[in-house]
Structures are given as structure tokens and as C-alpha cells.
């Protein structure tokens, strides 16, 4: 699927082909999840931690299914509301998943699931000190972004819209500004993407990647939608590299006018 002219994507110390990151939650079944990962071309999937029952061992089965796919995992700290919870969850994730990669979530509001800007920065500082490769889930706020970069983050994941809302890019101006302000930081739009067109819009802005979960998992046909997102992200990246034409106020004929039949000097 990947266009041969597209260079590899260096991210978090790895080289990837696909710029789509896929969440693993809310699929109809593990089998559909596996098919969706394959169809999307994603090489990174997000995973989480939950309390495990000794008898059911649901987590151990899930882990086997993910390992079969041969993808890089990005453990999250979903549901954490304090720095302490986030740091402990991060440490548990690093041991279980054997990766320093971490999607850092510290939630500050139950209704919008907006990241808590102050606690997020505090947790990021501590986790960068502990050697994690922190992918902080943040808002589009420029000053918070600056503090995260100062904390040692080389990757930022601003939201497009609230998690699971499918609204797309609610604040394109701020996202564009963030891109312009941090040309050397890897920027990934995380959360709120509902359709492939939203992913294309983010990639056309020059975003480095897009993280999608619900839009694929809750599509009528998740496997087909996974493929649609894989193509969209690639298409958007190609468009960004190609450079879009400037917008014109008036029409300009696309067909050459010289030699037009029936032409008369008026």
C-alpha cells in the first residue's frame, strides 16, 4: 500500500512506514481487531492495563493476539487522574509490554476527557527523567506544548476533538499554529477523528501522524474503515509533501484558451 517515494518515518527511535497509529479498544471481537490492524497498515497500536482476574486471564489472551500481529505497542495511562497514578501505571506498562514508549494521559475533566494541563506537565517531567519515550496526549494549547517540550518530550499529541466524539479537527487554526511553531517536534493528532477526511486534513497541515480508534472500531465495517484510514493518512502525507496550490479568489480556466474553437474577438 505504501507509496515507494515516501521516506520512512523516524519516530521514538524507530523507523516506520505507516503514519497511522491505531487504537485497539471497542472492536466487535479480537478477530476483527486483528483484521483491522492488518487492513490499516498501522505499525503502532495503543494498548492499556486493567485489573486481571486469575481465572479469566482475558489480558493474557489479548496480549497473545497483539503479539501475533508483530506491531509496536504504545501503552497508555488511560483513566489516570493524578501524577502518581500515571507514573505507577507507566512503570507497570513498561514492564508488561517491554517498551519505554508511553502514551501519557492525565485526565482533568470527566465530561470532555480533557487532559489536565498542569498534572500532565508534571507527570511528563517525571517520566522523561525515568527514561520513558513520552507521547503526551494534550490539548492544542501552545504554552502547555512549550512546557512539555521543556520537560523533554520530542513528540506531542494534541487532540482534534474530545476522545470518541468523532467531531474532527475542532480548532484547525491552533493546530496549524502548533505545527508552524514546532517544526522539529513530531506532532500526532490524537482523539476526535471521526472520518478519513479529518485524518487527511491533519496530514495536509503537515502533522506527522494520526491516532485513531473509535472511528475504525465503531464503523459498520471496521476492517474496511481501517483500510480507508490507512489510505487517507498516506494520501494526506503525499499531498503535504507535494505542496497544495494557492487558493484563488476567482475562476481561472484550466483548459488552455489559445485556439479555442468558435473564438471571436469581441
Amino acid at each position, binding site marked *: 500500500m505504501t507509496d515507494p517515494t515516501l521516506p520512512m518515518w523516524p519516530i521514538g527511535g524507530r523507523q516506520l512506514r505507516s503514519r497511522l497509529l491505531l487504537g485497539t479498544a471497542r472492536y466487535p471481537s479480537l478477530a476483527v481487531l486483528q483484521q483491522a490492524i492488518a487492513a490499516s497498515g498501522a505499525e503502532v497500536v495503543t494498548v*492499556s492495563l486493567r485489573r486481571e482476574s486469575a481465572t479469566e486471564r482475558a489480558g493474557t489472551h*489479548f496480549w497473545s493476539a497483539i503479539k501475533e500481529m508483530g506491531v509496536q505497542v504504545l501503552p497508555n495511562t488511560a483513566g489516570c487522574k493524578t501524577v502518581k497514578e500515571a507514573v505507577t501505571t507507566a512503570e507497570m506498562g513498561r*514492564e508488561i509490554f517491554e517498551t519505554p514508549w508511553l502514551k501519557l494521559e492525565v485526565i482533568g475533566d470527566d465530561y470532555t476527557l480533557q487532559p489536565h494541563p498542569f498534572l500532565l506537565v508534571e507527570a511528563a517531567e517525571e517520566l522523561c527523567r525515568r527514561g520513558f519515550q513520552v507521547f503526551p496526549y494534550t490539548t492544542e494549547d501552545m504554552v502547555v506544548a512549550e512546557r512539555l517540550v521543556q520537560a523533554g518530550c520530542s513528540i506531542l499529541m494534541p487532540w482534534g476533538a474530545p476522545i470518541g466524539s468523532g467531531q474532527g479537527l475542532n480548532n484547525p487554526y491552533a493546530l496549524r499554529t502548533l505545527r508552524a511553531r514546532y517544526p522539529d517536534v513530531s506532532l500526532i493528532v490524537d482523539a476526535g477523528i471521526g472520518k478519513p477526511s479529518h485524518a487527511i486534513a491533519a496530514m495536509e497541515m503537515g502533522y506527522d501522524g494520526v491516532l485513531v480508534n473509535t472511528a475504525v472500531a465503531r464503523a459498520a465495517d471496521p476492517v474496511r474503515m481501517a483500510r480507508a484510514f490507512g489510505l487517507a493518512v498516506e494520501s494526506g502525507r503525499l499531498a503535504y509533501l507535494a505542496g497544495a496550490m494557492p487558493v484563488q479568489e476567482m475562476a481561472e480556466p484550466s483548459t488552455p484558451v489559445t485556439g479555442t474553437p468558435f473564438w471571436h474577438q469581441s
Partner: protein
Amino acid sequence: MIIEINGEKKEWEKTRSLAEMIHDLGYEGARIAVARNDEFVPRSDYATVQIRDGDRLEIVSPMQGG
């Protein structure tokens, strides 16, 4: 003594190591990580960490996430 495992209180007869406790609870061979009283306990410490009355354990494993 009383300890709390994943939010449920359990009665245990004697103080024992975390490694013994994980074995007795039936987690042998499962892919888990542990926090004790909100602090992460690395796998390499299971044998030496002694469980005390009132301890709270979180035993987690991989799960779907976004």
C-alpha cells in the same frame, strides 16, 4: 491479616512474599504487573517483598486501549 487485591478485601493466614502470594492466587504464568500501595513493584522484587496486613495490591495485565 487482611489485604486488598484489585479492590477486594481478602483474609490471609500469614505474612508471605509477593511471589508466594501471586502463586497462591493462581496468577502463575499470566502476563501481569503489580503495584503495592500505589507503588510499582518490579518483577525482580517479587521474592523479597513481604506482604503486610492492610496492604493494597493492584494486579494488572494487558487490555484493549485507545
